[in-house]
């Protein structure tokens, strides 16, 4: 869209013009980080020297696209139950549960940290139990009930654990946070001792580079009383 390239084509317009009244319709359309970077790439800003924008390829390769087909075209049908809703998909067998949620189902609340089960950012619930979604294949989950952060609560109706994280300032950059919250919600239902050390021990599968640990522990201790 012409008005989009005025805003996003940094090559042509180093300093984007302020939006006119005619652009009101464009402004109302909510732009996410993902859609911004995708459109910027498509508009040709990939040729700029900005490493951030240059890296933003439109999602097309491998199992990333919504109607993903492998190079040989082999996909397998599956119905996945995510947050109480059934999704009928055709998936490349290599698709992890994590990538399926983020790339095929537009549920990017679950984050990819290490992609090797070592950081916990991808933690979500399968049948109520916390797991690392990066090390599970999507096709393994027919018949399972999967809960992601999107299904835990909404901005209007936060889960008590989410509310506790907000109240106790239990995150900084927020990247580990959905994994921390999903992990904590499950942890308080597992055998977990009462002390702060016990909470740390129960949560050690979730790493936080920002070091928000003390506040995470405080949030979990607060919310567990409401479980």
């Amino acid at each position: 869209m012409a008005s989009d390239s005025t805003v996003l084509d940094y090559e042509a317009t180093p300093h984007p013009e302020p939006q006119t009244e005619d652009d009101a319709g464009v402004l109302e359309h909510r732009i996410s980080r993902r859609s911004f970077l995708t459109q910027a790439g498509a508009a040709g800003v990939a040729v700029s020297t900005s490493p951030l924008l240059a890296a933003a390829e439109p999602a097309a390769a491998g199992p990333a696209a919504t109607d993903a087909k492998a190079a040989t075209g082999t996909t397998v049908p599956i119905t996945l139950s995510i947050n109480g809703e059934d999704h009928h998909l055709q998936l490349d067998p290599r698709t992890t549960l994590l990538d399926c949620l983020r790339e095929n189902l537009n549920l990017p609340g679950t984050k990819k940290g290490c992609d090797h089960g070592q950081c916990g950012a991808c933690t979500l619930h399968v049948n109520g139990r916390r797991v690392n979604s990066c090390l599970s294949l999507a096709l393994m989950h027919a018949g399972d009930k999967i809960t992601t952060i999107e299904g835990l609560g909404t901005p209007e109706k936060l889960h008590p654990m989410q509310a506790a994280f907000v109240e106790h300032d239990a995150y900084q950059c927020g990247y580990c946070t959905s994994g921390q919250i999903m992990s904590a919600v499950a942890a308080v239902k597992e055998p977990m001792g009462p002390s702060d050390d016990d909470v740390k021990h129960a949560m050690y599968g979730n790493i936080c580079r920002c070091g928000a640990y003390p506040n995470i522990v405080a949030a979990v201790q607060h919310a567990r009383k409401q479980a």
Partner: protein
Amino acid sequence: MNEFHFNRATTLAQAVQAGAKSSTAQLGATVRFVAGGTNLVDLMKLQVEHPEQVVDINSLPLNKVERVSGGGLRIGALVRNSDLAHDPIVARDYAVLSQALLSGASPQLRNMATTGGNLLQRTRCVYFRDIAHECNKRNPGSGCAAMEGHNRMLAILGTSDSCIATNPSDMNVALTALEATVQIQGVKGQRTVPISEFFLLPGSTPNRETVLEPGDLITSVTLPAPSPGTRSVYLKLRDREAYEFALASAAVVATVDGGTLRHVRVALGGVGTKPWRSAEAEQALEGKPVGSATFRAAAEAALRDAKPRSENAFKVELSKRCLVRALTLATTQA
């Protein structure tokens, strides 16, 4: 990750038949079973594993923990590590197994990982896990980058000129001290293998890690009945307090009879190319008086044949002290 066909096995026979199509059950297998996926999917992402077919065995009826006649305990191959660790019978009668499981991985990984999968857990050697480096385990004859490279986390017992990779599992060390047996369903039927025979030393064929043949599927692990009055302990020493593999660990099972050690079983982790049952330590302990002199003599015997490398010589002393501490914990009245 390479492309592969994915199927879900609904019967044991189906799974065995599918597995039998591979020419090997060892590294390079073209058919792999997936249960938790925590090791297989990890290695597939690294292209260390590249099966053509992945068979999901999660629907098979192998997820029970049940008493068997004679008082032993049969653990289904699909029992999740977390469920096994918290099983009341295991926690009470086989404490070393519960402690070992809870010392490993993370809560999320333990919720996914299974008994069978943990038995087959592969080494964490950085050169094995990086296909850019030569590795005799991945590619026999290609060389071992670890011998003169970063070998701090690698083995000092059971090594060969071809391979010094450690077996990283905590569960396996506990099962070894408990003298577990492994039940396997194969193309020729069912068989039972004592855990002491299940794992292979690397020798000149480090690509062969277990006795499994194509089509073999582990169905259960069975523990013998606990001896009355036995105490057991798993002690794991590592760089961090949690979420890290062992530098050295010890699984000890023992009874104290009037100040004398009886029915002692010792297995070491973090130091062996397979879970390391130490007959040398057991001989130095059986019938001896409880005390630090006895324990230290046993530790010396256990590590006598240790072959340290450039970065892991510290493991010799660390492993000894680990065993002494574990024995102390196991024989001290709570």
